[in-house]
């Protein structure tokens, strides 16, 4: 965990006081809605179909158990007893009252959590690998660099009124769990041939109405230049990004229209002027921020302790272990994913009681730390292997041990028309019904890794373009229809899915998905060939024929 200091506390206290004042001014009529809206959005407060919605930032997906408990408290006290974890490692409360928001914000601020910059045309919460600091795959802890960017971008005077919102993601592992290639800036931390730490910089990725994979603008940026280079990108975007059309205002359109090379050249020119200025990250500065990350005092333990070996005799535990437990960089430890996708429940939702229980489990077994992943699951990144059996039993009791991580019913879904004022169609009930069709987890396991992503509108909060199967809700003559894409992926081989055919009505979606999965089971060369690899090998035609012949 990064330890906030007096500075961060003062900053938050001042902003909470300011928001309280703004809410009071609004309720008293001193501010019109037009004036108030941008102010509430700056604090993560939206107005949705039924109520206000508060989006709370979880910087780089890291939560302490105290913070999670406080989120549970807010859910219980000011909402309806649950929260929704999002694809951007945030949490949303769906039923909050404007008049209660100042109190809720103050309660969150006490543990260093807030909704600032979770909306608006600013630099949003910087996201990263939920396994950061724990996975043996990484070259460095990407949260360090995310934290540096958090400090840099918070209330940035020049970049709070950009042409459009701006999302940065970082990976420090070759296997990209942060979807960096579909972000405005995607950063891949690695070492060059000389062993120097630096970033591969991609710009202009994104989903939404006009999806793009990010374009390479700098193969190797020495880490010390991270802030000056990001500032150069932001300045070029702020000056030259389109503001005439909201749908063409993201940086991806600027990069696309002038070309990645011309864009990179413009950034390079700007960067030359500032690279040795105040934003240069000297090694002692980086060391100082690094020193504020407190790492667990891991015991010296061996892998595969007897407690674990004994528990693996139990098939139910063994199944969960195979599915939800991953290797840790420290021997004798493991990374545990907590599925928030029990079959038939809204994807990514957790009740206040579940949040409290997970916080308690983090205290007991996980060095008080919890992570949020963009797949809308949680994670305990630091668990001793000998504690896994006890942990599993308690997760199981709380409905949090569904062994379906990365399987066909581990579905990403946005809130959709059931909550969201922008949506055209529902997403959650579609996910629920598909998950029920594959409720037999043996069947789901037989299918293997398969990511289904569902968005209720073109804004693509459910990342449908990069789902192995993507489902996009659209409205046709007042009815819900869904477009299906296949072959998308969000990882280091990111690509956009291909449209399978005409949109189908709500009722037909689950069956159509089953048909696609059945086609895959017939077409794959072996159980080792994943769905997305079969699509890559054969193209979409065999799937198209099979699916549309049936409908």
């Amino acid at each position, binding site marked *: 965990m990064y330890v906030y200091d007096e500075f961060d506390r003062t900053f938050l206290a001042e902003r909470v006081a300011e928001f309280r004042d703004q809410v009071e001014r609004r309720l008293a*009529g001193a501010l019109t*809605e037009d004036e108030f809206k941008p102010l509430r959005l700056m604090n993560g407060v939206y*107005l949705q*179909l*039924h109520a206000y919605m508060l989006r709370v930032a979880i910087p780089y997906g890291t939560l302490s158990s105290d913070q999670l408990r406080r989120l549970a408290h807010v859910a219980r006290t000011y909402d309806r007893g649950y929260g929704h974890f999002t694809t951007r490692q945030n949490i949303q409360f769906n039923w909050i009252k*404007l008049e209660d928001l100042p109190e809720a914000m103050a309660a969150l601020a006490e543990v260093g959590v807030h909704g600032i910059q979770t909306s608006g045309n600013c630099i949003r919460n910087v996201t990263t690998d939920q396994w950061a600091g724990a996975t043996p795959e990484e070259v460095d802890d990407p949260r360090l660099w995310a934290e540096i960017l958090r400090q840099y971008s918070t209330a940035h005077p020049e970049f709070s009124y950009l042409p459009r919102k701006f999302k940065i993601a970082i990976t420090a592992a070759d296997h990209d769990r942060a979807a960096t290639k579909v972000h405005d800036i995607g950063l891949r931390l690695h070492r060059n041939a000389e062993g120097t730490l630096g970033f591969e910089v991609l710009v202009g990725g994104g989903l939404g109405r006009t999806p793009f994979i990010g374009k390479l603008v700098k193969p190797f940026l020495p880490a010390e230049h991270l802030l000056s280079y990001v500032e150069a990108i932001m300045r070029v975007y702020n000056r030259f990004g389109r503001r005439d059309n909201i749908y063409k205002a993201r940086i991806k359109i600027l990069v696309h229209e002038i070309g990645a090379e011309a864009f990179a050249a413009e950034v390079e020119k700007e960067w030359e002027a500032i690279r040795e200025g105040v934003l240069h990250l000297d090694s002692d500065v980086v060391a100082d921020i690094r020193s504020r990350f407190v790492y667990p005092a891991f015991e010296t333990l061996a892998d595969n302790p007897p407690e674990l070996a004994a528990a693996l005799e139990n098939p139910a535990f063994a199944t969960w272990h195979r599915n939800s437990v991953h290797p840790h960089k420290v021997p004798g430890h493991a990374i545990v994913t907590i599925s928030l996708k029990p079959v038939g429940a809204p994807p990514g939702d957790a*009740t206040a009681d579940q949040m409290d229980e997970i916080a308690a489990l983090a205290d007991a077994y996980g060095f008080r730390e919890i992570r949020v992943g963009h797949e809308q699951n949680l994670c305990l990144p630091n668990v001793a292997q000998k504690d896994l059996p006890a942990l599993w039993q308690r997760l199981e009791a709380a409905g949090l041990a569904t062994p379906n991580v990365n399987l066909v019913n581990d579905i990403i879904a946005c809130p959709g028309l*059931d909550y969201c004022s922008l949506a055209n169609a*529902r997403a*959650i009930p579609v996910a629920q019904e598909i998950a029920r069709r594959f409720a037999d987890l043996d069947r789901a396991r037989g299918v293997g890794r398969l990511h289904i992503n569902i968005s209720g509108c073109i804004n693509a909060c459910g990342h449908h373009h990069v789902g192995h199967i993507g489902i996009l809700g659209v409205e046709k003559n007042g009815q819900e229809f869904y477009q299906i894409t296949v072959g998308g992926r969000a990882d280091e081989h990111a690509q956009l899915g291909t449209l399978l055919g005409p949109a189908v009505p709500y009722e037909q979606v689950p069956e159509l998905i089953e048909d696609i999965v059945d086609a895959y089971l017939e077409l794959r060369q072996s159980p080792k060939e994943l769905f997305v690899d079969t699509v890559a090998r054969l193209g979409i035609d065999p799937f198209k024929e099979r699916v549309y012949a049936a409908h």
Partner: protein
Amino acid sequence: MTSPLQQKIKVTGPVVVTANRLADGVVVWRTAGNTWSTQLADAAVVTNAADALALLEGAQKRDTDAVGPYIAPVERDAEGLIHPGNLRERIRVAGPTFDLPA
């Protein structure tokens, strides 16, 4: 908010004016008495663009009661009761279409 004068208003059937209450976001409907009600049954139902516009303009005069008023379709059943005219409005009346986590 788009001014109602700039808003293209096409009314082909019965409509109401709806919004969210400022203090808590609860869904409200404009009544014939130019107040807001949390019950759709209390809503003023109009059937032409001029009446709809007048209702909307009345709703926009004060923005300290309700936020973001707009015109929404409704349907009348055989007994004359009003029901939401599309899925979005049905969800605003009845809540999400699945069981909420508990």
